[in-house]
C-alpha cells in the first residue's frame, strides 16, 4: 500500500502543483521518485513531528496542500496538540498520513503500535478519517481526498497487501460493498477487508452469506448505508484493528444509540490493553479474533446468539 501511496502522490502532485510532501524522517527510498521530480516540494523535517504539523499548517495558510507523513503512532499521538490547534482549529487542508496504522508494527513493540490512531484523529472536529484496505483502494481514494477542503487522516498499512475484487469502486465517505448477502452484515476497515473476503469464502461453503462492507471512511461515517442495513440484518459484526474506543465499532455503536431498530453490534478486535510480548501481526490478529478463523467464528456466532456467551465476545451498542 505504501508503494501505491507513493505513486498516487506523484500523480496527484503532477496534477496539482500545490501539493507539498513533508516527512518526519521516514519512508526510506519510498519517496525518492517524488523528491527527484519535485525538489523543494519534498521536505524532510527531521524527527520532529510537532514541527512537521506546524510547518504543514503554515504551508497550508500560504495556499499549499501539504501531506505530512510518518509512522502512524508518531503522526497522530506524538503531534496531537499541533494537529488539534494548528491544523483542525483553522480547518486547513492538510493530509496527515500514518504508515503502519493499527498493529502493522506489532512486532516492533508498544512504541510503534497505533491501535488508537483512528480514534485520536476522529476526536478532532472536521477531520476526515480514512483507512483503505489495499493499494488499489487507496489509489481510488487519494484523488478524492485531495479535493477535500479540510484536514484528513489517512491510515495506510504496509507493503504488498493483496488487491481484492469489489462490487463497486471506492467512494470517499461511502461504505464500499465488498459482497452482497443476507441475514447479517460484516463491516471492516483498513487492511482487515482482505481477511474478511477470505472469511466470506469459507462461510459461503457453509451457506452463510453476510453482506460485507469495507468502511474505509471511519469519519464521517456512512450513515445512509447503516440506516439501510438496519432494516435488513439483525446483527452487525465489526472487525477492526483498533482499540474498542474511538474506532469503527465505537462510531457504529454511537449511531445505534440513536436508532431503536438498530441491529446488535458485535465487535471483533483488540481489547483495551497493551499488546506486550512483541507479537507478530499474525499472532496478534489470531489472538484477538481478527484472522480468517476468527471472523468466520464471529459470523457463525452472530447467527446463533446462544453460543455468544461461551465465545466471550464483546457486544456493544
Amino acid at each position, binding site marked *: 500500500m505504501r508503494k501505491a501511496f507513493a505513486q498516487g502522490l506523484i500523480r496527484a502532485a503532477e496534477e496539482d502543483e*500545490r501539493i507539498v510532501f513533508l516527512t518526519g524522517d521516514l519512508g526510506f527510498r519510498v519517496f525518492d521518485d517524488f523528491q527527484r521530480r519535485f525538489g523543494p516540494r519534498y521536505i524532510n523535517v527531521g524527527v*520532529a513531528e510537532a514541527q512537521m504539523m506546524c*510547518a504543514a499548517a*503554515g*504551508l497550508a*495558510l500560504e*495556499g*499549499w496542500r501539504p501531506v505530512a507523513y510518518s509512522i502512524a503512532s508518531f503522526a497522530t499521538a506524538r503531534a496531537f496538540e499541533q494537529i488539534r*490547534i*494548528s491544523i483542525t482549529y483553522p480547518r486547513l487542508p492538510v493530509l496527515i498520513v500514518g504508515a503502519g496504522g493499527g498493529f502493522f508494527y506489532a512486532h516492533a513493540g508498544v512504541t510503534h503500535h497505533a491501535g488508537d490512531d483512528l480514534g485520536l484523529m476522529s476526536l478532532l472536529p472536521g477531520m476526515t478519517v480514512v483507512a483503505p484496505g489495499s493499494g488499489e483502494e487507496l489509489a481510488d481514494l487519494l484523488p478524492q481526498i485531495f479535493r477535500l477542503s479540510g484536514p484528513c487522516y489517512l491510515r495506510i498499512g504496509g507493503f504488498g497487501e493483496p488487491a481484492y475484487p469489489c462490487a463497486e469502486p471506492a467512494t470517499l465517505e461511502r461504505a464500499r460493498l465488498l459482497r452482497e448477502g443476507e441475514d447479517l452484515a460484516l463491516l471492516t476497515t483498513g487492511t482487515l477487508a482482505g481477511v474478511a473476503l477470505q472469511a466470506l469464502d469459507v462461510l459461503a461453503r457453509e451457506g452463510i452469506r453476510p453482506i460485507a462492507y469495507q468502511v474505509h471512511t471511519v469519519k464521517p461515517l456512512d450513515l445512509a448505508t447503516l440506516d439501510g442495513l438496519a432494516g435488513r440484518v439483525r446483527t452487525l459484526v465489526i472487525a477492526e484493528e483498533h482499540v474498542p474506543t474511538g474506532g469503527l465499532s465505537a462510531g457504529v455503536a454511537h449511531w445505534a444509540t440513536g436508532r431503536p431498530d438498530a441491529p446488535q453490534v458485535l465487535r471483533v478486535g483488540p481489547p483495551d490493553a497493551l499488546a506486550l510480548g512483541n507479537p507478530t501481526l499474525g499472532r496478534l490478529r489470531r489472538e484477538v479474533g481478527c484472522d480468517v478463523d476468527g471472523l468466520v467464528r464471529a459470523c457463525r456466532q452472530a447467527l446463533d446468539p446462544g453460543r455468544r456467551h461461551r465465545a466471550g465476545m464483546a457486544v456493544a451498542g
Partner: protein
Amino acid sequence: MTPDGRMAPSPLLLDGEEQLIPMQAKDIGWLEAQARRIRATCVQMAYDAHEGHLSGTLSCVDLLVALFYGWLLVNPSRPRHPDRDRFIFSKGHAASALYAVMADRGFFPRQWLLRYAQEDAPLPNHPCAHALPVLECSSGSLGQGLGIGTGMSYGMRLAGIDARVVVLMSDGECNEGSVWEAAMFAAANRLDRVLAVVDNNGVQAVGRSDALMGHTSLAEKFRAFGWAARAINGNCLAEILGALADVPFEPGRPSAIVARTTGGAGVSFMQDDVLWHYRVPSEEELGRALDELRASPIHKD
C-alpha cells in the same frame, strides 16, 4: 508564482491604496507617546473585561509599536495582500496589546476594543482567526507560532514571494520543545526571512523563566541552533528600531531578537511582579496606572 498560479505582484508596481508601506515612524518621542497610549488602552481593557495577563501584555508593547508603526510592510485596507509581511502573535495570552495596536493602525474599528473578551465578540481573550479574520492565525497554545511561521516562510519561498515572517513569542513559551524543533527547521532550510522576537520579560505564570530555564541564555540557544541572534533592551524603542533595521542579521540565517523587557513595563506597581500575570486591576489601580502613563485609552478618547 503563487500556489494558485498567479504571478506574485511586486509592491513597487502597485499604486495608491494597494501599496505596502511601513507607517513612517515619526520620531522616538512620538513612538514613546504611542506606546503609552497603547499601555493605557490595555489597562483599561483589562479593567473593563476583568481579564488579567497585564504583565506579559505591557512588556511587549514597545516591540509591537516598533513593528507596527515602523517596520512591518502591511496595509490595513488590504490585509490579505500577497506580499504583506506575515505577523504571528504567538503569545496569545497578551492579546489586548495586539488588539490595541491593530485597532490603532486601522485593521478594525477602535470601538471593537470595548467588547474585548466578551462573548461572541471579534476580540476574544486569546486571538481567534475565525472571530478576527485579519489575523494570520489563532494563538493561545504556546510553542506553535514559530513552527507555523517557518512553514509560511518556506511556502512563500516556493511561491517566489519575498515577504518576511515575524513571530512574537514569550520567553516562557521557549520552554516548549516545539519551539526548538521549529528553530532547527528554520536554520536547516536557511529561512532568513524569518524573524523571531522573544519578549524576554523574565516572568511566567507561576515562576521566573530564568530559573526554569536553568539560568541559560536564549540568544546563545538560538545561535547554537544556527540562528543569528541579538539581545537588546526590548523596552527601549531606539534599540528595537536599531535591531530591526539590521534584519536579517546574517544572510542565510533566520534572525532572533531576544528582547529583555520588564513584566508590566510602564506601570510602576505592576513591574516585574508575578502577581500581575493574572491579576485584574481595581478601579483605583486603573486610575493610578492611567495617571502614571499620562495617556488615555485609544478607544475612549
